[in-house]
């Protein structure tokens, strides 16, 4: 790993931008009826073990990326195998987010060919990733700040459509359905932060690693809860039939016919945050590949991998519905393998090694 460093605030901004990323487009957790506002909180609670594992791994191997940690813990062959699985997941995640972005824009501009959105979005993503983590981190502070502000303004402007009675009854669905909705939030977007195991090592003040991650996630939780609450109160019964509830909210804004049709604010926030999320995943894949093959720098890999990402997004789904069904039916079982199972195995192997010091010293000798 080279000498590039990012500050703890920048890492926090990256995490916030990443978690909000495509989740402001698809707004997970809104399928729990009137209790949807609570799903983000329970979702984060369910995701806390994953976060704990990430923090633990980064604290025992400070300054190392997940690929390097895998090599150290599982040996050169096992480590490479694990890293390969992770890199596939990061790569696929990037392609999925590209799909989310392109699906969203193409439902507003139906006749423009789909690949146009993918290529245009990916061009920015590749440009951002190629410039490296420092540039991305500095961009993220600005992007996240303005997107956050935009979304906050949108939420405030919804005030005249809010009907607090929509929060009743408190339990419109069974506990099982509620936990399922929360679990979906755990997997997407909170589980996705496993990507940051590739980036945490860049932080310049290592003592602040865990506090930065936790603070960023708390901000995301507050924001997500606010967002879902306004969606419940402002969209009412129509919430569940909306594909893009956030965008539907923006479209409803109408302050006495003066402030109205502000769709573009929501759409641009959706776009910029989605681009940030994709570039983080693209950077993670490129860096991982570079480290696996012991390259000096990851920059030359960004363009080819980014292009592959576009192709992946192009071929993986036939339609928006295919994507949505994948999100709802497959992704929630597919992603946890990479988000929770593999890191847990890595951590357990590390703990085992700690408890068998004799073997370790023998092998060293």
């Amino acid at each position, binding site marked *: 790993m080279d000498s590039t460093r990012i500050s703890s605030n920048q890492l926090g901004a990256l995490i916030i931008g990443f978690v909000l990323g495509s989740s402001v487009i698809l707004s997970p957790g809104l399928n729990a009826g009137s209790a949807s506002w609570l799903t983000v909180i329970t979702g984060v609670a369910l995701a806390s073990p994953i976060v704990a594992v990430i923090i633990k791994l980064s604290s025992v191997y400070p300054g190392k990326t997940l690929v390097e940690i895998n090599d150290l813990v599982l040996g050169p062959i096992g480590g490479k195998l694990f890293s390969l699985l992770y890199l596939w997941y990061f790569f696929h995640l990037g392609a999925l987010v590209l799909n989310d972005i392109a699906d969203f824009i193409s439902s507003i501009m139906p006749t423009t060919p789909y690949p146009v959105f993918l290529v245009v979005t990916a061009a920015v993503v590749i440009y951002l990733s190629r410039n490296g983590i420092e540039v991305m981190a500095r961009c993220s502070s600005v992007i996240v700040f303005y997107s956050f502000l935009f979304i906050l303004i949108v939420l405030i402007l919804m005030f005249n459509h809010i009907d607090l009675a929509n929060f*009743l*009854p408190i339990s*419109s669905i069974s506990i099982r359905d509620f936990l399922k909705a929360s679990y979906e939030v755990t997997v997407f977007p909170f589980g996705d932060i496993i990507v940051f195991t590739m980036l945490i090592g860049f932080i310049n003040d290592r003592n602040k690693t865990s506090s930065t991650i936790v603070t960023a996630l708390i901000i995301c939780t507050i924001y997500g809860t606010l967002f879902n609450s306004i969606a419940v109160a402002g969209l*009412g*019964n*129509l919430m569940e*039939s909306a594909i893009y509830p956030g965008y539907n909210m923006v479209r409803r804004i109408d302050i006495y016919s003066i402030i109205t049709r502000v769709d573009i604010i929501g759409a641009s926030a959706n776009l910029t945050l989605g681009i940030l999320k994709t570039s983080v995943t693209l950077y993670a894949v490129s860096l991982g590949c570079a480290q696996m093959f012991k390259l000096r720098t990851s920059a030359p890999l960004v363009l080819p991998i980014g292009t592959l990402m576009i192709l992946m997004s192009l071929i993986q789904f036939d339609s928006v519905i295919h994507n949505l069904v994948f999100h709802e039916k497959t992704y929630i079982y597919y992603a946890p393998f990479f988000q929770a199972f593999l890191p847990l195995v890595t951590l357990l192997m590390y703990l085992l090694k700690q408890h068998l010091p004799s073997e370790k010293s023998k092998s060293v000798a």
Partner: protein
Amino acid sequence: MKIISLFLCLSIALSGCWDKNELTSLAITTGVAFDTEESEEDIQMTAQIINLGTLAPAAVQSSIANPPYWNLKTRGKTVFDCIRNATMQSPKKLYWAHNQIIVFSEDLARQEGVGEYLDFFFRDAEPRISIWLLVSKGSASDILKMDSKLDPIPAMNISSLIENRSNNAKASAVDLYEFSNRQLSQATAPVMSYIQLLSANGEKTPLLSGTAVFNRDFKMIGTLNERETRGMLWVINHLDNGLLVMPSPQDEVNISIEVISAKTKIEPQIINGELKIKILVREKGVLGDADGFVDVLDKELWNRINQGQAAVIRQDILLSLEQARLLKADIFGFGDAVYKKYPREWKEIKEDWIDIFPALEVEIQVQTALVRPNMILHSINK
């Protein structure tokens, strides 16, 4: 070299996209009307398109022979089919982002129902969810042909008419959002505004009054008259202005009270297994007009006027309740209030709600305040 590559990049980035919409190639629709068609399968649609060329300031308007709009009649199998078939007659593509109203003829609403007509307006990215919905007495396309005063375009005229309904509180205003929110709720019956044409001296002008009531299968089942509409508006908390006209308790004098604020709470109660709905109305009014002498300094009389307005409100609600029971339509959202407060009990009665609702015991409590007599104390006609 750098400059050339910059130009190349900009030519791609700045040249726009496939979905560009130029103003000159758009036919901006402001309203749409659906009528019954002889053959069952077809839909007949009338779209009102703004004729931008002739949309001149009102002063110049009279000198232009053509109206500033064009009512385009098309037919098709579905709403979207109608819209695309319109391009066989219109040289410009219909653009829906500024559509204001959807009018259904009463025949269509009663016989076929409006269910199949609404999907397009939710699904397409162009129309807004704030489009007003109306049912017209008689032909719907005639509404778009009316003699539009003050605003040159009938659909815009009706849209403003609906936005100003709170001044009379005798008509309901329902947009796509509210209609769908009621339809998707547990048991609330959807409603729409009701419009008709008044003809006098060969001129046809609109009258927006009353409410069209639908059942949960999108079929219109009846109407509420002006007073019943006001009763419904009290209960669903949509009444913010309006007049209560009543005889003075003292003499043969009519007085009107202007409502300045109103707030209603629906509270379902289950006592000993018996479901009961409690409606609590809080209203504030001012004395707006008296056609005879009213001694406002007489505290006793002032109190009696205040009680009088409470009685009018109660009567409004009772009348609308009676009509709703007759139609078996839960226009007030009592069912949803029960669902919100007693979700478990609601599950058991949900299926039979349509039979439970008419027999429901409803208690009405009205708290009113008469706050001021406005600018003068005594009428000049003593």
